[in-house]
Structure formats: structure tokens, C-alpha cells
């Protein structure tokens, strides 16, 4: 099960500076764990201590918000793109 994880600028420092990377896993939880194995600390940027998605990060599989599909339990089909969208305040 290979998927693509697309990272925003604000999270690239947590994944070795890459804009996207390949990962494996059938659910979002597995995909995050796979990235975290290679880039320790990544997981904590996406989910909180109790394992829930952080409320200032949105994760999409395709164009669907995973919050409406079970959160970290959301299925990630083979070949899907996982996009992480953080809140950003910059405007000036």
C-alpha cells in the first residue's frame, strides 16, 4: 500500500525538508507511523498525546477531510494522496 504524503512548508522541517514523500499504510494512523519511523517527531506535529488529530491541522485524503471519515482511522487507498493543511496566519 503505497501513498504520497504532501507536506506544507510549515511541516517540512519535521520530514527532512521534503515537499512530498512516499509512505505505506492502509489507514491514516499507519501512514503517519510510517513517516514517523523515518522522521521521528513527525507524528507529534499531526496528532496529540491521546492520538487524535490536532485541531489546527487538517488532513485530506484526496479532496476529503479525514475528520468526516473516522479521523486517524480513515482508510487511505493504495495510490492516494494524503495532504496536510496547517493553519497559517501570515498575511503581510
Amino acid at each position, binding site marked *: 500500500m503505497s501513498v504520497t504524503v504532501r507536506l506544507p*512548508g*510549515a511541516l517540512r522541517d519535521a520530514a527532512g525538508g521534503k515537499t512530498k514523500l512516499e509512505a505505506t499504510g492502509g489507514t491514516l494512523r499507519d501512514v503517519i507511523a510510517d513517516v514517523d519511523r523515518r522522521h521521528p517527531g513527525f507524528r507529534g506535529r499531526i496528532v496529540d498525546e491521546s492520538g487524535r488529530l490536532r*485541531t489546527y491541522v487538517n488532513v485530506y485524503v484526496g479532496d476529503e477531510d479525514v475528520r468526516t471519515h473516522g479521523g486517524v482511522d480513515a482508510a487511505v487507498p493504495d495510490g492516494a494522496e494524503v495532504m496536510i493543511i496547517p493553519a*497559517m496566519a*501570515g*498575511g*503581510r
Partner: protein
Amino acid sequence: MPTYRELFSELKKRVREATPQQVADLLRSQDVQLADVREKNEWDAGHLPGAVHLPKSYLEQWAEDRIPDKGKTTVLYCAGGVRSVMAADTLRTLGYTDVISMSGGFNRWKDAGLEWVTPESLSPEQAQRYSRHLLIPEVGESGQHRLLKSKVLLIGAGGLGSPAAYYLAAAGVGTLGIVDSDVVDLTNLQRQILHSSERIGEPKVESAKRTLEALNPDVTVVGYQERLTSANIDRIIADYDLVIDGADNFPTRYLLNDAAIKWNKPVVHGSIYRFEGQLTVFKPQDGPCYRCLFPTPPPPELAPSCAEAGVLGVLPGVVGTLQANEAIKLLLGIGDPLIGRYLLFDALDASFREVRLRKDPECPVCGERRTITEYIDYEGFCASPSEWQAEHAPRATTAAG
């Protein structure tokens, strides 16, 4: 060769006519297309309500734009009922199947005591300035009047606010309110195109006012040289039709969100980080709000501002211009605004992506059970979001994850 008289009497045989009273009855009882084929100065002096202006001199070129349905009953009128007969015959050759010319024209309509309206008219200079808008049927003269009467509030005269305000002023949006407490500094000029080297040290709202009013004297710029707070936002926001959010910090964005819901104002949201931009329209009731999307801000150490993280100078140009585009669409009521749609721009990939946003039924300000019903301490909320939530709104922390 026939004389004009012969030609005209030939045409009269082919064209169906109706008296003003019959036309008035028809307009009441049936869905018809109504077009005024007179020249602009005649139209400006008064016309039938609901008519489109389709001058005979541009009949062939403009007909399909202004009266698009060739199968629908179409009524034409001029001043006295001559030009409309000729125009009706021309439309027939263009494929319009049911065209009626109003006999006696606008003059007889008025004499019959039927209702007519005077359009607000643009000055000759305005007609030139906005000529490229007037040519677009979706804008046209009535749309341009609408823009001139519109009031848009911009939060920030910086990276996003500069291009947004610039284009809105050029478009003739009549009143632009600008909230910004800063003065122009040299580091701004890499992207904040409203300002200039000679204005360093000048309040941004004054610099913006000078630039925008020089571009378009139709525009009134109202400057608010203050930071947006719970204490002043009601006074500032109440008067405006919509808000463009180009703030540079989370407390202002959450405050604006809560006030926009309170006052029922659409917010055109934009944000930028280095090479990436995000854009959407938060329209109260019709779609999600900022808190549906991000119930809490990230902790400050994970959310650097442009001053800390840097930003490609042209990026706010792209995103701010798109915000102006959304604002104009909302003001005119045209197109599909970005309500419930999050548009993501990546300057390095030169790519746009879009994801769907949903209203959160648990949202503390726009959801079914509202727990935030007045302004909060936004600085405190953004400085340590989880502590604030634990103290004030325990339910929001149980959002699905």
C-alpha cells in the same frame, strides 16, 4: 430597388406588433425577454423596468449575450416603433422565433401612463474608466453601479491587502475601509505595493489612501489606524458589505471570524507562508467558518509569521488578487464563490489544489450548540489554545480526531 417607405411597409407585414398595453399584460403574465433598441442617451433618460439595453447599432453583435434565448418570446421597443420593427426583422434572421415590436414605442408607453424607470447613469468619465467592465454582460452598467455603491473592509494594508485594495479601487468599489495600525517600513516594500520608498515612516492607512485615491477618485478610502480588537470591531465592521482578511496573526483572524458571524458579513480569507497560499470564502449560514476549519490555532512556536518565516514577495500578489476577485464576484452576485472550498496555491509547483470544507456541527460559534456567544480573550486563546479550551469550552476539545 425599393424606397425606404416600401421597405418599411414590407417589414411591417413580416413583424408581429403589440400595443404598449398588450406588452404590459404580456410582461405580467409570461416570461419574456425585453430589449430596448434605442441609443444610450435615450436609454439613460428612462426605460421600461426589466428591459436590457440592446442598441440597434450593436444589435447583431450583442443580441446573443443580452437576450440569449432564441426560442423565448422577445419584445423590442424603440422611441416610436420604427427602429424596433427593423430590429425585430434582423433578430428573426438571427434565429429568434417569436419577436414582437412594441408599436408607438417608449413614447406611447409613457403616454399610456405605464411604469418606467430612470437608470442611474455613469458620468462620461466613468463610462470611459469602466468601459471594459461595461462591455461584460455580467457586470455592465448596473453591476458597475453596484460596485460604486459597495463597501469593502480590508484587514491589513500589507502583503494581501495591497493587491486586493489596489484592484478593488481600480474596479470602482466605492468605499474601501482599511484597518492597519502600522507604519510603512523598508522591509514591507518587497511585496506591499501600495506603499513606496518615500513613504517610509508614514502610517500605512494614509499611504494606502493616497495611492488608491490617486488611482481612482471615485473611491473613498476610510482609514482605521488602530489594531482590530473586541472593543472596536463592532464599530468598524457594521457598515461594510464584506471583509477581506489579510491579517498577520491568529488573534485577529479568530476575532474577525466571530464578529463576521455576529454581523453576518462574508469574509474573503487569505493566508500565506513562504511559497504557499490558502484562500476561501467564509459566508455565515451558507458555509463553514474559520473555526469549523481550524478549531484552535497552532501554538505560537509552530506558527511563524511572515516576519519570522519569510515570504516570496509575489505570493501575496497572487493570493490578494484572488481575494479581490472573490470579493467582486460576491458583490456582483456572479460566478461560484469559494464558499466551502479551500484553494491552495503553491508558487514553486505553480499548482492550485482544492479541497472541500464542511460546516462543523460542533462549531462553538456557528454550530448547533454555540458555546462562544460573545467576544473572548483572543490573545489568551491564541497564546495557549489548549489551556484556554480546557478552561472555557471543554466540549470543543472532544472534536473527532
